[in-house]
């Protein structure tokens, strides 16, 4: 049911708002005065700053580097917020560095979740917190998920402590064809969402195929009521964006349209497209639509039938973000199989394990472990260290932050998890988690366990979770 809530519930709850203005994006009326000043390149900029860190060296650990590499008896050195060295036992350790014996433990890059609604659908999941779907029109590219994020969602801390999540993308929901902009966050407690924003990370654009938009709006006797209606309204909207871009080129004083601005930035590649799309046939249509209008789809999300078109995904350079074993909660999830992730990987396409869930995000390593095991049982031999790409460099690439994080390369942000065993085992938990070299979780130190504002003074405050 949690799956169902995440996928459907938010869309279904708000039928009472059906009488609001539900027209498509309207170009500004003629005669509107020109804008008084140019748009800022990045309004609502990140104010995130790494927390203080001390030079730290972990030795004797098994290291998965996040790009498919593995080092036994490995050493990693973190200094000044960055990865300073990764290698074998002879890796030099700077004088004065804090040393941690990683014997019997594993080191990986921090886990990246490309699909989360933390903050937008926070805990407690009360109506007053339901901020993930601007369900007033199927075309809402002007809304930004970051403007809904409640930084005090207790779910962020669970994702850190149990899942080793260091970076995550918060996306709008899937009730709308154009759901709005997504935002990539550092998983650090903050007073403001700007304090969590990943500096320099491109924003995302959420698109949705399939059942949700047509159900939500079709039930209001409004377009789209069918899958062909979904496609028609998407095409009409992209065409409007193409024309708007041309108008802006010819006349820089053309009145700004916040919705079409998002689409133009997406066509120009400054915003990466994340497309909720379950069925193989619909993904193929979306790939054609991308060619028709000149945009690129970074990633299909949920992609339950990606295994049917691994070859197409590879040819188009589009990632598939998947659950390991969710299935059957709705018709477009009916053909799910446990081997989806390894089959996509085997086809040479970019495979990602995602959560879309405040519980699943605490166990993405376990989801990857199930998927790799199911793959092996059907004869697809993928090593644990290669499978870790699904949680590291692949989602980093899908988010456009692969130069900054997503693997343990020297010079990248020191986003690191030390696990108390093999992270592909059900018995393993994060022992320590670093963001930009700052130790923000330590299972042995209750003072390194974040407690959200919401939980202060409540039963269970500060407890292990």
């Amino acid at each position, binding site marked *: 049911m949690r799956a169902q809530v995440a996928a459907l519930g938010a869309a279904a709850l708000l039928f009472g708002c059906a009488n609001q203005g539900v027209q498509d994006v309207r170009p500004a009326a003629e005669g509107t005065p020109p804008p008084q000043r140019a748009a800022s390149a990045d309004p609502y900029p990140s104010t995130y700053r790494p927390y203080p860190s001390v030079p730290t060296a972990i030795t004797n650990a098994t290291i998965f580097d996040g790009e498919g590499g593995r080092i036994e008896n490995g050493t990693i050195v973190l200094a000044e917020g960055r990865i300073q060295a990764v290698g074998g036992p002879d890796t030099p350790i700077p004088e004065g560095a804090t040393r941690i014996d990683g014997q019997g433990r594993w080191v990986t890059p921090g886990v990246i979740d490309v699909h989360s609604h933390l903050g937008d659908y926070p805990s407690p999941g009360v109506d007053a917190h339901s901020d993930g779907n601007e369900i007033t029109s199927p075309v809402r590219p002007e809304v930004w998920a970051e403007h809904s994020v409640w930084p005090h969602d207790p779910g962020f801390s669970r994702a850190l402590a149990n899942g080793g999540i260091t970076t995550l993308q918060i996306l709008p929901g899937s009730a709308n064809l154009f759901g709005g902009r997504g935002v990539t966050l550092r998983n650090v407690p903050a007073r403001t969402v700007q304090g969590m924003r990943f500096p320099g990370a491109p924003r995302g654009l959420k698109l949705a195929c399939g059942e949700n938009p047509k159900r939500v709006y079709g039930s209001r006797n409004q377009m789209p009521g069918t899958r062909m209606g979904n496609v028609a309204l998407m095409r009409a909207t992209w065409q409007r964006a193409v024309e708007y871009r041309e108008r802006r080129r010819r006349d820089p004083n053309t009145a700004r349209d916040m919705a079409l601005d998002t689409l133009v930035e997406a066509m120009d590649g400054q915003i990466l497209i994340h497309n909720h799309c379950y069925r193989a046939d619909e993904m193929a249509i979306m790939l054609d639509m991308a060619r028709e209008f000149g945009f690129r789809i970074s990633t299909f999300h949920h992609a339950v039938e990606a295994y049917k078109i691994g070859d197409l995904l590879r040819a188009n350079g589009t990632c598939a973000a998947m659950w390991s074993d969710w299935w059957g909660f709705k018709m477009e999830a009916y053909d799910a199989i446990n081997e989806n992730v390894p089959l996509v990987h085997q086809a040479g396409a970019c495979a990602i394990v995602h959560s879309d869930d405040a519980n699943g995000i605490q166990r993405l390593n376990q989801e990857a472990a199930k998927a790799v095991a199911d793959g092996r049982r059907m004869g697809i031999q993928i090593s644990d260290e290669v499978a870790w790409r699904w949680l590291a460099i692949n989602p980093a690439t899908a988010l456009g932050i692969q130069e900054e994080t997503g693997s343990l390369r020297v010079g990248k942000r020191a986003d690191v998890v030390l696990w108390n065993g093999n992270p592909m085992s*059900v018995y393993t938990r994060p022992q320590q988690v670093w963001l930009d070299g700052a130790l923000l979780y330590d299972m042995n130190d*209750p003072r390194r366990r974040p407690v959200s504002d919401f939980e202060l003074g409540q039963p269970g405050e500060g407890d292990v979770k």
Partner: protein
Amino acid sequence: MRSFRLLLAGIALFGAVPASAQTVAITGGRVVIGDGTEPIDGGTVVVRDGRVVAAGANVAVPAGAQVIDARGKWVTPGIVAGFSRIGLVEVDAVDPSNDIQAATSPFSAAIDVVPAINPQSSSIAVSRAAGVTRAVVSPATARSIFAGQGAVIDLGGDMNPITRARAFQYIELGEDGAADAGGSRAAAHVLLRNALREARDLRLPIGGGGRGRPQGAAPPEDLAENPYIGAGTQRSDDVLLTRFDAAALVPVLQGRQLLLVHVERASDILQVLALKREFANLRIVLVGATEGWRVADQIAAARVPVIANALNDLPATFEQLAATQSNVGRMREAGVQVALGMINDDEARQVRLLSQYAGNLVGIGRVPGHTGLSWSQAFAAISSGPAEAVGLGGEIGSLRPGRRADVVIWDGDPLELSTGVEAVWIDGVRQDLTNRQTRLRERYRQPQEGALPHAYEPR
């Protein structure tokens, strides 16, 4: 999560299959009895006539038995899903395929899930392939705090899924119960008390009790299920429940049928325990109890079993503020009998996750501050634990002699993520482990079409 390797091809299990009369001996494996005792290396499990004859070390292989070599494997009782809605739905969001709740039915407590359970639903085949062999199946509430009567089923590939019909009545007394009752917990409690009194006040027909019936009463077949339904039953005009619903609560009131009560908040749990002071015969099982650790001593003292979610750790609602993955471990340490279920957690399709959840409860034991379970306790929480919670510990949930022969062979530790299922027996009958998912997997090993489209591929 588990594998779907088919070891025994060609078994088609549609239609009633009698319990196998053949004697089967599974030898050499690491045997888990499922009752909380430690695994036994090199053990033998002997099954005959659908029941376990013996399991453990030094068990002789009877002459003529079919011997299955399980060296290097684990042999366990099948997983028992302590709370589920399996078999009641094919696709959640496809309403006509979903029999979990009846939003506009005039009935509540009288609803009985048995006629709705579809033994051929995909979720049963998928869960069976992951080693789940039995499930507690509950309806959900809609317009009343009473969801109706749930059953215990098997997940065998035949048309006879019912292990125990009408095993329990399921009710909501927390946030959902408040909503069902008109808006407050207080209203839910008064609704419950009124209903139990209406059940108490039902009079059997004159000469009733099912033996002598009044002249002109309905023919016996109409009364077979519950004599309190009879037309001769006297009722006041001042009642809220239908006759059927009130009659359905008589066995609850008398303690002949379990009452499963879903609550999460610590104070709600105490209110449920207090019901036994008012209605002494109630046999209560707590479902949910996310904040149970806060009142674990009281639960233990009341000797009320709990079926809980393993991993709730978010304040997902205001009745779960104290959620922690240590809940189960702390309750158990206080002496509460705890089993795992899937409460509002993909309970119609994902009971196969229970082994992963149980493994997590072992894993947290190595995190300072957490209270987990030992491996054997964790396995019992998904085998004998739920069986005992619903009063069927003598029938299912372990490999103790005389239990129904629900046996699984795993290729490793059954709680570990990399482990797959190699063979499953239910009631002594070897099961087919293929399903839609395994068939789709085989069809799309290569995504490209061959000489003919995928739809023509030979099997």
